[in-house]
């Protein structure tokens, strides 16, 4: 499998939300990076993991498949998965693949955090 060209940084955003900042290409090759970021995000007991796609540069169908696998893992731990910072192009891909029915999409991080604080 080709080398991943993605960077995922995890930070706690207050309350019970952990944010994963995704920068670069999301393909099946970055599964170990995503799963490691997810584990780090979950280690603090986050009830919601927010995937911040503001730095997303490229995504193929392998990347979408990987998000489905992540969704199953989050479901097992009774965590909610959310996404923010998607461009119109990637938002349409979430809608086309109907991932938006399981991953709540917010326009930006502030909206996601405001909703979590309610």
């Amino acid at each position, binding site marked *: *499998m*080709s080398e991943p060209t993605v960077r995922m940084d995890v930070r706690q955003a207050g309350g019970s939300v952990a944010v994963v900042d995704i920068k670069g290409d999301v393909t*099946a090759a970055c599964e170990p990076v995503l799963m490691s970021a997810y584990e780090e995000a979950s280690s603090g007991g986050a009830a919601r993991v927010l995937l911040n796609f503001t730095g*997303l*540069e*490229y*995504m*193929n*169908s*392998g990347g*979408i*498949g990987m998000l*489905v*696998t992540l*969704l*199953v893992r989050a*479901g*097992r731990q009774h965590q909610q998965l959310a996404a923010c910072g998607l*461009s*119109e*192009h*990637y938002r*349409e*891909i979430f*809608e*086309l*693949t*109907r*991932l938006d*029915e*399981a991953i709540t999409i917010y326009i930006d991080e502030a909206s996601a955090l405001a909703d979590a604080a309610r």
Partner: protein
Amino acid sequence: MSDQAVPESVAGAEQIGLSAREAKSTVQPRDAGNWAAKVERLAVEQRDGVRGTNVAGRRLTGPVQGFGKMWEKSYSLNAGQATTPQDAIATWKAHFPEFWPKGNRFAGALAGISPGDVALLDLAMGGGVKLSTGVFVLYADQESFTLMTPQGHMFAGWITFSAESVDEATVIRAHVLMRANDPLYELGMTFGGHAKEDRFWAQTLTALGTRLGVPDPQVDTRSTCVDSHRQWRHASNIWHNAMLRSMLQTLATPFTALRRRSRPAR
């Protein structure tokens, strides 16, 4: 190196009055041409050699919308140095139906496999029963393409066909991420359906390998149950079950033909 003159500096988005969000939205991502445009429901054209039912008006279904356990399956073939990943995928896209096991029909667009195409399928289910359904081309680039299933198909999910270089060899792969679409299909998958699907893709990859000049192609099959839970909230997917509908359509064929014949000519 290009002969074109390069300006010493380029005005940034802020200097030309664009917000960061606007600037981002005007730049097309590298994958923009690889994805199908968004569709709510599938529209199809009639194609020769297939019944072409159970597709028009259906919505696409991913693993999130399926009923059964979620499976990740991988069928791979080491083609050695017989081909490159790009050539393998180009051949697969151009001749996709030719590699399917006998008795099954795939009627795609004449141009091959392109994002947004809808292909009509007649699948041999045994006992002379044909299941009529379809697939949607979700994604296609030079090294992979992905098909997504509509409501009524046996499974909800997608299949990605890809090729890549691994240690100077070309590895060709079919990767399935799926849930059976409804309780009836789940029963069928549990009692022989998975084995049948494994044979189907192993035969397909073997046929592709033979076409590409791979001596004695061997397919490696791996299956993992990613989620053992069934999504009972999607049990009502059975309403669209293409197997049941295909059987009814087969039974109704003589009556439909009779009705057509008795209609006055316009």
